Structures are given as C-alpha cells and as structure tokens.
C-alpha cells in the first residue's frame, strides 16, 4: 500500500514496527541524502511544538526532501474559520506527505480520511503520538541490544502521559516487565492495566521512588504537569517526590539508561546529565532516524 498513514502505533503490526526500527538503523548507519529528491513534506502544526516539528523537518531535510508548512495556526487560514477538511484537501495538492499536529483528539485520523496523501500523526491532543513511541523503542533496542525481556520503570504522570500509554501497548509483545511509579492520583489508567493483564504482561505499581530501581533496564521519566492538579498544594507536595537524582543511580545496572520524552522541568536533576546512564539527549537524535524511517515507509520508498 503506497498511501499508508501512521495515526496510532496500533495501525502497524509488530512486524511492521520491527521493520521500521531496522530502517531507522539503516539511516543512522548510511544516511540517504537523496531519497526524498523532488518530494515535498508539509508540516501542519495547528498547535505549537517546536521540538517535534524541528525533528520532522530535520528528518525530511536529511533525506533531501523539501518542507513547507506552518507552525502557528493563528497566521494561517485556520484562524479565518476554515474547516480542517478544507485545509487538508488543499494542502494535499501541494505535497506528497502531511505531518500534522493538532490539539483535538482524533483529528489526524479524520485528516487521513480526507487527505489524498499519507498523513503522519505528530500528536493529536492527549490521544496519540506514534513517532515518539517508535523513537522510544529504537532507543531501547539500541541501548539494550534487544527489545525482549526489558524491565521498564515508568515514573511521574502515568495517567495523562500519552507517551507511556503508547509505549506500554507497543512493548507488550516483547515480554517486558513494567514497574509503574507515581502519585496515586496519576496512576496508570485501568484500561491499560487491563490491557496488560489480557496480554499476560507482568507489572507492579509503586508510590515510592527509591532503591527498587536497581532492577531497571530502562527508567522512563515523565513530567508531572501543574495543570493536572486541582489542588496546587498537592502539586507542590507531589512534584518533588518523583525526582531522579544522580545519587539514586549508584546501585542501578551499568547498562541501565534513562529516557524522557522531553521537555523536562525538574524531574531529572541537572546532576544526572553527565552520568553515562542519562540517554535523553541521544534519544532525541534517535527521533530523527525514527521519523526518517516512518516518512520513507509511508511514501513507499522503503518497504
């Protein structure tokens, strides 16, 4: 299929995900600066996300593609009241691929129905952000040498964090062990725990962030956002409970790596950055390879 969109990580089979990770690895080893010659990629950001947009644009540029688009809907026709459908139909004429970020959930699925070119979801509200999941998996595979039997500790906001939800789903075929560390108000939602039960995946829930992390292969940190708490006092009390500090890493495995979808605020102390177990900046670079893989795959240039 040449017109295949990527809206949710569950759109791709486990085999397709493994293939995408291989393609990403190929791009890391052997850059292909002319693969997208003559192709135009549109990045439509209906809400700002500089990091994600630059990552996609870097991926397209490094493959030799041209990039058009907007990063601020206030200066585009959207602000004049144009429907999403009209915007997508028009932009379909101008490009070979649409990369889209939108504040409303389900918007990218709808865009993929009305577009005449493939659509890649770069985040639709709290719903999905599949290329983040791919780059997380790529980072796990690259640092651990495998995807199977990984002990993953997820810390912080497990209730609203879409990246942890997608990663839990996507890693489930690889016999992982999950440890979820969060404030009771920010626990992993029941639907995802039910999902893990149905797949016979082992998981443990904790409220304390302490030496249990010595078992970890991966620590996946997330940001606890102030707006998640109605009671600001509670936020102030909570935010410091789930901070990863360099001193906590002493008894962790030598091969353990720390991931974070970024941006971080204070949940990873600055003194962790120089520890060789800190991997979040390289993780961001992996995002470029993972997005190159997705772009070339949905365009049918890599199979």
């Amino acid at each position, binding site marked *: 299929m040449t017109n295949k969109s990527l809206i*949710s990580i569950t759109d791709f089979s486990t085999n397709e995900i493994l293939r995408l990770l291989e393609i990403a690895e190929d791009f890391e080893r052997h850059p292909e600066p002319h693969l997208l010659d003559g192709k135009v990629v549109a990045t439509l950001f209906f809400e700002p996300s500089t990091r994600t947009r630059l990552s996609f644009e870097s991926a397209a540029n490094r493959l030799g593609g041209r990039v058009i688009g907007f990063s601020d809907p206030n200066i585009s026709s959207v602000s004049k009241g144009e429907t999403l459908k009209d915007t997508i139909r028009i932009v379909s004429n101008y490009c070979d691929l649409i990369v889209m970020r939108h504040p409303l*959930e389900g918007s990218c699925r*709808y865009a993929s129905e009305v577009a005449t070119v493939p659509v890649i979801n770069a985040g639709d509200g709290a719903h999905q952000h599949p290329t983040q999941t791919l780059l997380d998996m790529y980072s796990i595979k690259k640092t651990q040498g495998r995807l199977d039997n990984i002990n993953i500790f997820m810390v912080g906001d497990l209730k609203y964090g879409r990246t942890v939800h997608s990663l839990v789903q996507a890693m489930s075929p690889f016999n992982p062990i999950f440890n979820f560390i969060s404030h009771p108000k920010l626990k992993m939602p029941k639907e995802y725990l039910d999902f893990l039960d149905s797949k016979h995946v082992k998981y443990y829930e904790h409220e304390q962030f302490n030496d249990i992390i010595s078992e970890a292969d991966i620590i996946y940190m997330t940001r606890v956002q102030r707006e998640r708490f109605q009671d600001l006092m509670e936020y102030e009390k909570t935010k410091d409970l789930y901070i990863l500090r360099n001193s906590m890493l002493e008894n962790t495995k030598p091969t353990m790596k720390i991931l974070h979808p970024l941006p971080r605020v204070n949940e990873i102390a600055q003194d962790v950055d120089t520890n060789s177990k800190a991997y979040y900046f390289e993780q961001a670079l992996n995002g470029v390879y993972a997005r190159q893989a997705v772009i070339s795959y949905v365009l049918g240039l890599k199979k």
Partner: protein
Amino acid sequence: MDKSELKVNAIKDGTVIDHIPAKDLFEVIKILNLEKVDNQVTFGTNLDSKKLGKKAIIKVSDKFFKDHEINKIALIAPKANLNIIKNYEVIEKRPVELPSTIKGICKCMNPKCITNSEPMSTKFDVISKEPPALRCFYCGKITDREHFIII
C-alpha cells in the same frame, strides 16, 4: 398479543415498538421525532411487563422505521421489539439490534474530540450492546449509556 398491548388501540398498518423501559418512553419518542410527525401515534406507559417490570409501548400508524431509526431505538432501549403490522396482522416481529459499527446518530462525549468541532459525521465501534457502549473511531474514547446524545 399479550393483554397489556390490548390496552392501547390496535392499528391497521404500521409499527408497534414494544418492551421499551417505561422511563425511556419519552426519549424514544424524541429521538424518533414522533412529536412532529403527522402519523397517528398512540402510546402507553407503566404497563406491567414480566421482562422489564414497567414497560412502555408506542404504536405508529403507516410508519415502517428505517435502519438508522432502528439503531437509535437500540441505543436507548436495547430490549425493545418491533412488530410490523399489515392489515391488523403482525407480519414480522423482531428485536432491535445494534450493528457492530454505527455512523451518525450519536455524539461523542469527549469535548476534545474532532467530531465535536468539525462538520462531520461521528463513527463508533459498538463495544457492548447491553448496556450499550460506543468507542469513537476517531478519538478512541468510550461513550456510555448515561452520556448518549442522539443527533
């Protein structure tokens, strides 16, 4: 025909919707737009029912409901039965049944769902028929019986 049906006049041609939970009668009338039709409509409520305790029944003359209307009934009153009447005879009796997917007819309860801001049709997978629950094809959120807003 059981005795409770006899409490409401028989019709020559049309449809009898039976086994509606009494509390849902007026919602069924509303979603089928029966307040505004020219057909003869008779209804009875708080009739005794072995299945439902108290049930309601609606008879609409010269009206044979289309699939999307039957789907609406199934969302609100999944145990309802349709009796198709021709020349005073019941020629067909069947339960309403939700298909596995439905289009239009109900709003997604997620205020941040794209279907609530674009001029577009909603689409759901029916993940439970009794009680009915719908998963939005677009945002993935589940709309349950308490949150149905029929379009």
